[in-house]
């Protein structure tokens, strides 16, 4: 299944760094996303887009993971050549991941 079926997400940006959350709708699914959606898996999923490190943080009481992806925004919002300079659409791409 796709992450989209069990989780929601929002993206923010700071310079060339993207911050993508992943929040399980049902607290029972938190263990599953925690196991499956590793930083390595996320880095592979964003191949071609994220060129730096991916760091994962956890907010257990709201069953959320928070991914910080470095060198992810084509140089950052001011100088990116992308249509989506902020990378705001990256959350929707994360939810496309098959687990």
């Amino acid at each position: 299944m796709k992450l989209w079926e069990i989780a929601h997400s929002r993206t923010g940006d700071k310079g060339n760094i993207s911050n993508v959350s992943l929040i399980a709708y049902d607290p029972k699914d938190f263990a599953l996303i925690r196991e499956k959606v590793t930083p390595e898996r996320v880095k592979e999923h964003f191949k071609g887009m994220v060129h730096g490190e991916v760091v994962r943080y956890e907010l257990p009481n709201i069953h959320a993971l928070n991914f910080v992806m470095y060198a992810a925004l084509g140089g950052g919002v001011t100088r990116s050549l992308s249509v989506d300079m902020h990378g705001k659409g990256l959350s929707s791409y994360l939810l496309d991941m098959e687990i």
Partner: protein
Amino acid sequence: MKSIRIGSGAGYAGDRLEPSLELIEKGNLDYISYECLAERTIAIGQQAKLKDPSKGYNGLLEYRMERALPLCWEHKVKLITNMGSANPQAAAAKCVEIAKKHGLTGMKIACVTGDDLLPVIDKYMDTQVWETGEPLSKLPGEIVSANAYMGVEGILKALDQGADVVITGRVADPAIFMAPAIHEFGWSLEDWDKLGKGTIMGHLLECGGQVTGGYFAEPGKKDVPGVGHLGFPIIEIAEDGSFFVTKVPEAGGMVTVETCSEQICYEIHDPENYLTPDVVADCKQIAFTEVEKDKIAVTGITGKPKTETFKCSIGYRDCYIGDGEISYGGPGCLARAKLALEIMKERLELVAPGAFDELKFDLIGCNSLYWNPDYSYDEPSEVRVRVAGRAKTKAVADLVPNEVEALYTNGPAGGCGAVKRTRDIVSVASILVSRYDVKPQVQVFEV
């Protein structure tokens, strides 16, 4: 226990006005704060100020204040905003003029300055830039702005002097929401737990509608009622730092555990160490509880001592970006769009060989948002070609949009709807400066 109500009047520079007016009228507020300053906004403001010393503040200041100031005065709501941008003094002068026009006699309007480090930027030339790892002196273009992210100190001074309206330049976004709580409850500036709670409260408010159901709707999975007349959020915070998020009942949108969960993670990076000028907030153990419909209690926040440094954003002249778009539709559209990209590559190599620092070739509808070499896409019913290029001069950057437009008469069949533009790019770099180098100053004007 004493508590106050703080509303969010704007979540970005160009945000809607009427939800904030609804809050002032119906939100039973004590304060409303408008967050209107993105990373690059102040650099653009600084350039406007250079051309005209009476400008450089948020372009919607007059539009907003014409409506908000009389309503705030009537409903006894104090207003705080960073709409001063590169010129808080000129913004305050404009507000005084507006207040006079509306007969708001006795209103006190304050401006907070001290964030502008451009006059002393030379002393930081050896300081390392975060983005490049190199000294500031090595930035490729002329520096046009340098602004430190100040904390609550200047706003508190203004409130202590009885200000009804406080206009700042660069301050940390949560500070414009937290300052009222510190002022009203007399919190110590070293009570890290309370400042942690106040900062996270500000973080939840700083993007306006993003916590009341904006940027959230997903039909069938995450439906938002009344999203076309979305309300902005209110937080009611008590003296002990406990608080809940809510909205005006008749406003559209919703406040739920899910809307709050998305917003708490937004741009927070490490939830255990949310760095601000006033405190290092820790919300790793944050929890949201629905008390009643559209009323979410927030718990589990603490704080740690602030750091010795302030972040300072440096705006510099970077480059020019030119881009152009043209569409293809109907049978065979994808093949024609791909041919258009091949033509563009040949043309740019012909007219300006090696002149671009970077080029991007997109098929909008197929691969423009997500470029992954393994990603496959089906033939769409229409596709939009987009080419963007970065160059050191405008003349070179202009070649990209001009060549895209020329695909009309020189490219594949059926090209339509071409648009083109070239932008002068001011970019932002960040350095850390000593907090003792930044001295907030306050001026209060009485109408």
